[in-house]
């Protein structure tokens, strides 16, 4: 297949994943802003930093971190390259470029998402409509995922799109930890002390896993366990370990199909083996912040290597 087409499938999947992650971040931010109006601005700022949009926000609105402004900016501002509307448009443009590699169902799901969200986000969303709009965004991404899973050939194109999904997701989870790691730190010093309830709930909500956490660990909330859950727990579909496993599966598939072990395959394996194959305590011992910074760097390096090895661009 064309390198450009592989790249379009990969970026399409990254943008789709990003829109879903951003919807989740808005949801979590909105909850905390509702319940704690005195720290709302700080929370919104941390949401924007996590989503990598704070720079653009300050360019447009300075330090006015009001709920309404931030939500509108993150949902639909065309000046924000990562707003959900911008990202969906990018996903759809990439799908159009790779149209010949998509099934009719897969293409129509992406196109319908773009049309549906375009209609929903045409005007500023009122605060009381926000939960419905966010639910619709999640639902659209579910439909796209379903169409892909149900109809796409499991060929190289599919593997490139999956690589995009998991790279983006790993990046997102790591960024959430990167912004919130300081909340987890002090409590580690005195094991057993619980961290701020609302804060940890926000973290877990940002990855849609507050219920899953309780299923797994019961009522006990500890920084160590939350970190373990998000970083190492392989059954949790947004954990770093889960995403890296999947990326290695996709890279392994490509290596077999193409009969070529690329540098990207080696980098992918090293993230799993060197970084994620140790107990959480050792990660904390060596510094959680350092760990996350290093992970983000390695993940980005892998992304660059994939683009090079599979000739997305000349």
């Amino acid at each position: 297949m064309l390198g450009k087409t592989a790249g379009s499938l990969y970026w399409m999947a990254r943008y789709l994943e990003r829109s879903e992650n951003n919807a989740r971040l808005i949801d979590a931010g909105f909850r905390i802003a509702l319940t704690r109006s005195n720290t709302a601005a700080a929370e919104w700022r941390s949401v924007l930093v996590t989503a990598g949009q704070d720079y653009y926000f300050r360019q447009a609105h300075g330090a006015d971190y009001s709920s309404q402004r931030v939500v509108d900016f993150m949902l639909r501002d065309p000046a924000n390259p990562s707003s959900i509307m911008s990202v969906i448009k990018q996903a759809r443009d990439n799908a159009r470029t790779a149209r010949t590699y998509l099934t009719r169902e897969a293409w129509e799901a992406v196109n319908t998402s773009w049309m549906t969200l375009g209609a929903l986000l045409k005007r500023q969303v009122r605060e009381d409509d926000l939960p419905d709009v966010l639910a619709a965004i999640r639902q659209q991404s579910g439909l796209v995922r379903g169409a892909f899973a149900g109809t796409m050939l499991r060929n190289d194109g599919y593997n490139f799109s999956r690589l995009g999904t998991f790279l983006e997701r790993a990046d997102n989870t790591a960024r959430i930890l990167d912004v919130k790691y300081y909340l987890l730190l002090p409590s580690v010093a005195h094991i057993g002390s619980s961290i701020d309830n609302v804060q940890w709930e926000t973290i877990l909500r940002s990855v849609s896993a507050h219920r899953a956490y309780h299923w797994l660990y019961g009522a006990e909330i500890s920084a160590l366990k939350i970190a373990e859950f998000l970083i190492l727990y392989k059954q949790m579909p947004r954990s770093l370990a889960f995403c890296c496993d999947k990326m290695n599966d996709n890279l392994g598939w490509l290596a077999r199909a193409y009969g070529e072990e690329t540098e990207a395959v080696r980098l992918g394996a090293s993230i799993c083996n060197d970084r994620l194959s140790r107990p959480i305590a050792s990660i904390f011992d060596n510094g959680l912040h350092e760990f996350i910074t290093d992970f983000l760097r390695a993940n980005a390096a892998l992304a660059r290597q994939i683009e090079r090895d599979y000739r997305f661009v000349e």
Partner: protein
Amino acid sequence: MLRGKGWRISFFDEMTGQEGEVRSPYREYSDWFGREDAARIQRKAQQAEAFFRTTGITFNVYGQDEADERLIPFDVVPRIISASEWRRLSRGIEQRVRALNAFLHDIYHRQEILRAGRVPIELISRNEAFLPMMMGMDPPGGIYTHISGIDIVRTGADEFYVLEDNARTPSGVSYMLENRETMLQMFPELFAKISVREVSDYPLNLLKSLAACAPPACGGTPTVAVLTPGIHNSAYFEHSFLADQMGAELVEGHDLRVVDGRVAMRTTQGYTPIDVLYRRVDDDFLDPLNFRPDSVLGVPGIWDVYRAGGITIANAPGTGIADDKALYSYMPDIIEFYTGEKALLPNVPTWRCGEPEHLREVLDRLPELVVKEVHGSGGYGMLVGPAASKKAIAAFRAKLEANPRNYIAQPTLSLSTVPIFTKAGLAPRHVDLRPFVLMSPQGIRITPGGLTRVAMSKGSLVVNSSQGGGTKDTWVLED
């Protein structure tokens, strides 16, 4: 039923003729329509629109916001052509395309027709689409016009005219195919009742036809690719549609480069040579080294590969001269010169404004004529005299006088009408027809029917999609 407001009996209606009685090709359809509930058809028409939207069968209008993708209006009433009408049309079309290909070969070789004085030399020397670099070149298989679209209009039961030849990069074939697909989904029962000839094999015929023109350098099964300017091009949907249906790669200039004397595409595993390139970019943009240096749509060096027999370019560079509307007026001579036969399908009478006598007559009769730019397309830059305001006519007169050679004029034809479905029932609207013709060393193949374009507003004679025209499914009946 057809005698609603605005119905002018002076136009030939393909459903009801001039007398108001249903003509035989439409009889079964008309019976069916009479029994149908209008509300159901209305519902189906709305479904069709949603179907076109989700499928992404949209086009961009140049000069408007790129995000503004528009639908071409689709009308649910088919345009029906009888088997015998089609036989006559297809013979005339085949003759014309053969002549066009022979003409292009001659122009780029010995230029016999110019020496014989049958076509004035200025029409070639001043033709912007003429490519001196093609002189003496032999495109693989001797084919210039791999794909052409011959625009046909009708003015009476037995009166058909060729309005325009499109040999450069005719578009619209995806609409022909999707219109049929849509009709099959909406009204399957109609196709069980009425025997309509298939159109769905067009993409495979296109692939076979292109593959049959593989260049000398091709070893084994030819690799075919479609070259598009990209997703912002107004016809991008069609480019991706055809690539998809043929199972060919859809490439852009930046996917290609010359490697070891071949044009190759960058795949995830390295560069793979292409044998036949169905390009949907104009000649000017093909090769920045040999044509427009600022072009980013093409492939540096493709021209040299082409000359050396390393790739087939379809249509061949330089075929655009045949789209020239001044040259069009010579088509009857061209056909006679190369085939030894009279043209089976007549031309519309045409005044060449570059000739002083013609110009004088055109200026005298401007309010009743249609005036077109020689190189124009898409309905841009034309004047429809009877529909234009005094002011518009005066403005056009000035343009015409300033550069007469740039224009031709034709009488305003009484284009035939076919009913469209409106909230108030059936209403006649003017139509034309673009049949699509494939040519390879193995022969000429014409898909039965083609794309029917319809002017959606009452009385309008402009059917171009860029000017609000719509389309219809076109049925050619089995014998």
